[in-house]
């Protein structure tokens, strides 16, 4: 098992020199070093992706503590199965796919309550089939109150998006993934990714619009 080989120590070098050298490498090179036995390389991958994954999972499931648990589980799975990773593929797509699947499982487990399940189905269907609409509101709400609660409103707007829209929306707007990467991570075709993203932006804008000047 290649993970066993990776446990073997490489020739001794000062630790800080190894870390500095590893930080300059791209993901594929870091993975290669880890599989050759430099187990400190795994720490470099953790440092690169911990906050990004926590933010992605947190925005998707809405629970910060649980998001950290799921990201821990993501790294554990990466550690166990890194020897199976195809080096010709992008490491970030692979690790995001694992995190996305764990987040989806979490949301699915939450909706096991029949009532919640039905409400989720109904909400998702309406989100996909409701005609896109836009009202040209020009009234100005209480600016001071709105700005004070702006962050909460924005976060709430994201959490109100249907789950399958939310994942795509967060990957695009907060994680900067391309359409192709989102398609691979979520295992949906490109056309569906574009459609979901468009609807997510429409929903998000409708919710946040009253808060804008």
């Amino acid at each position, binding site marked *: *098992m290649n*993970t*066993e080989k990776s*446990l073997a120590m490489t020739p001794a070098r000062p630790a800080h020199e190894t870390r500095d050298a590893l930080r300059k490498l791209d993901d594929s090179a870091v993975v290669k070093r880890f599989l050759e036995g430099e187990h400190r390389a*795994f720490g470099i991958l*953790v440092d690169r992706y*911990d*906050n990004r994954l*926590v*933010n992605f999972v*947190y925005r998707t499931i809405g629970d*910060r503590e649980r*998001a*950290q648990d799921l*990201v*821990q589980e993501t*790294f*554990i799975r990466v*550690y*166990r199965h890194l020897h199976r990773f195809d080096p010709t593929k992008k490491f970030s797509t692979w690790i995001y796919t694992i995190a996305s699947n764990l987040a989806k499982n979490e949301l699915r487990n939450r909706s096991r309550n029949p009532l919640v399940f039905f409400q989720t189905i109904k909400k998702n269907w309406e989100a996909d089939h409701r*005609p*896109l*609409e*836009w009202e*040209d509101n020009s009234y100005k709400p209480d600016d001071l109150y709105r700005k004070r609660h*702006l*962050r909460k409103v*924005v*976060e709430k707007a*994201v959490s109100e998006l249907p789950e399958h829209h939310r994942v795509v929306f967060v990957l695009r*707007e*907060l994680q900067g993934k391309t*359409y192709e990467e989102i398609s691979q991570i979520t295992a949906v075709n490109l056309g569906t990714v*574009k459609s979901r*993203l*468009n609807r997510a*932006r*429409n929903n*998000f*804008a409708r919710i*946040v*619009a009253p*808060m*804008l000047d």
Partner: protein
Amino acid sequence: MECNGFLERFSEFHDGEAADAGAFEQHMAECAGCRRYADTVKRSLVLLRAVPDVVVGEDFHPRLQHRIYHIQEDLARRRGGVSFTRLGVAFAATILLALAVWGPELVRETPQVALPPIVVSEPPSQRVAAPSAPVRYRSIRLLDPGLDGDDLWTTRALYEYSALSQR
């Protein structure tokens, strides 16, 4: 371009992937509602990205290192130590060996030994007369001849046991 079409494909235009970007620009020039929509989407996304990111807790890395340590320990044990598979095979081999050695003994029938019957003599029949007077237990022989039965409950006496068959 109509407003429906503008809304349906707005994301492509927003992301710079619309081949007919000119049509979108023209429609926005003509339609205030869609122009405001484009502006609102753009500003709301700027607002979203301005929300501070969440950072991992202080215990995140120690917890992860602790879990990875246990994975490494488990891998090292499987490499150099006795695995559960080997233990299972050794246990099964021991059971089979024990069955091979003691199996014939377990299967063999135990010999039947014929023992003579035990004859129990019947006790002599006795007619028990209804007591008309206070019963005095004649079988009880007081070691101290000076004591009689009435003193049984008032004095401490030593009694000599007599066999049941003699009572």
